[in-house]
C-alpha cells in the first residue's frame, strides 16, 4: 500500500512535482501516465528512496521513507530501463549478490526458472539480450519478496516477443497479490496491466482514470490534450 501526501520536488527553479497526493491500495496495479517531463520519473525516484522530496510525505506499508529508508527499501522492488546488473557477473552471481544485500536467501534456481532464464544461469549477463536482462532485472526486483513492485518504463526498447514475455511475468506477479506501480508511455500496456491510473502533467495530477472501464478512444484524447 502506497500513500503519497502533498509531495513536491523542486530543482533550483524548476518544479518537477507540485503537491501530488495518491493512495494505492495493497494488491492494486496502478499506472502513471503523462508526457515526458511530467514528473513520472521524479515521483518514482522519490518512491524508490533514490531522490529526497522537497516537501510532502510518502508512506510505504505505513513506513515513512524519510524516517526509515532502509525499511522502505525492503518493501519495494524496482525495475527500470536500467537493469542494474553487472555484465561481468553471471546471472546466478548477480542474484546471489543482491540476495546478500537484501539479507534474504531466495531459491535462485526457481527465481531464474520463473523468468525462464534457468538455462542461462552460468552465463555472463554481458552476453544477454536486452529482453533477457529485463527479465533478470525482474528476478532481482522480487528476490526479497517485496510487497510493492515499481516498473519505471520497463519495456522501453524491447521487441514484441520480449515485451509479451515481460507482460506474462507481471501478470503472474499481480496474481500473487503484489502492488504494482507502472509508469509508461504505452497506453495499451497500462490498460493491459493496470486497473486504475492517473495522468500527470507538469508535476500535477491532471486526471484520474479507471483503465478497465473507459473506452479506448477517450484515452487517446485525454493524452493528446496535454501536449
Amino acid at each position, binding site marked *: 500500500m502506497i500513500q503519497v501526501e502533498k509531495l513536491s520536488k523542486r530543482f533550483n527553479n524548476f518544479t518537477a512535482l507540485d503537491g501530488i497526493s495518491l493512495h494505492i491500495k495493497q494488491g492494486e496495479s496502478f499506472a502513471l501516465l503523462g508526457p515526458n517531463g511530467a514528473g513520472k520519473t521524479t515521483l518514482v525516484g522519490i518512491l524508490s*528512496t533514490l531522490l529526497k522530496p522537497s516537501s510532502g510525505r510518502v508512506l510505504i506499508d505505513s513506513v515513512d521513507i524519510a524516517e526509515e529508508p532502509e525499511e522502505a*527499501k*525492503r518493501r519495494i522492488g524496482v525495475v527500470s530501463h536500467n537493469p542494474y546488473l*553487472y*555484465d*561481468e557477473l553471471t546471472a546466478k*552471481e548477480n542474484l546471489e*549478490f543482491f540476495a546478500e544485500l537484501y539479507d534474504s536467501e531466495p531459491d535462485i534456481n526457481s527465481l531464474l526458472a520463473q523468468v525462464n532464464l534457468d538455462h542461462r544461469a552460468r552465463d555472463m549477463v554481458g552476453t544477454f539480450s536486452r529482453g533477457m536482462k529485463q527479465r533478470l532485472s525482474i528476478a532481482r526486483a522480487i528476490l526479497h519478496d517485496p510487497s510493492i513492485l515499481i516498473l519505471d518504463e520497463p519495456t522501453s526498447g524491447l521487441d514484441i516477443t520480449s515485451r509479451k514475455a515481460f507482460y506474462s511475468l507481471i501478470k503472474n506477479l499481480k496474481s500473487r497479490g503484489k502492488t504494482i506501480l507502472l509508469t509508461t508511455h504505452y497506453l495499451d500496456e497500462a490498460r493491459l496491466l493496470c486497473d486504475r491510473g492517473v495522468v500527470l502533467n507538469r508535476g500535477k495530477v491532471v486526471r484520474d482514470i479507471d483503465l478497465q472501464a473507459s473506452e479506448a478512444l477517450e484515452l487517446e484524447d485525454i493524452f493528446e490534450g496535454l501536449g
Partner: protein
Amino acid sequence: MNFKHILSVVKKDLRVESRGKETVNFMFLFTFISLLMFNFATDPFSPVLNDVAPGFLWFVFIFAGMLGLSRAFLKEKETGTLQGLSLAPISNDDILYAKIIYNLILMLGIQIIAFPLFIVLFNYNIAGSTLDAFLVLTIGNVGFVVVGSFMSALVMSARSRELVLQIIVLPLLLPVIILIIISLRKVMIDAIPLLSIGEIKLAASYVVIMAVLASLLFDYIMEE
C-alpha cells in the same frame, strides 16, 4: 556498519575485477614502467640513489593508485549499477567502506609485487627492517585509498572526472605524502625502528581523521 553487506560488495567488486582484470593489469604495468623510468633517472650505484629512492617508491604508488582509484565509483556510476546499490537496504557508508577496502586490496596487491621489484631494480639494501618500510607504505596507501575513494565518489557527476580527481586528491594528501616520505627515509636510510618515528604516528592519525570525516560527509555526496 554492516560487515556482511560490506563484504558482499567487496566480493562482488573483486569478482568483477577478476573477470575484466583491466584495472589490475593497468596499475601493475604502470608501476613496473615508472619504477624502471625512475631507475633511469639515477645511476644505480651512486650514493644519491639512497637518498632519492624512498621518494620514488612512494610516488610510484601514488600515481599507480590514481589510475586504479577512478574506477572505484566511476565504473558503477557509468553503468548505472550504483543506483542499484542505493536501491538496496545498504547504508551509504557501507558502500564507501567497501570501495575503500576493495581499493586497498588492489593497492596492497600492487605493493606486494612492486616492493621486492623495487629492491631488485635499485639493488637497494634497506638499512632498517624491510617490514617497517612495508608498513609505512601500507599506512600511506591506506590514507591514499580513503581520500581517493571518497573523492572518486565526489567527482562522479563532474565533467572530465579523472582529471578533476587528480587535482583534488593530491593537494589534500600533501600532509600524508610528506610524512610518509620522512618516515620512509628514516626507516630505509637511518634504520630507525618504526615505533619511534613520530611522523608515522602523525600520518596514521591524519588517516583516521580523514576516514571519520569521509564517512560523516559521504551521505551528502550520494544524495541526488
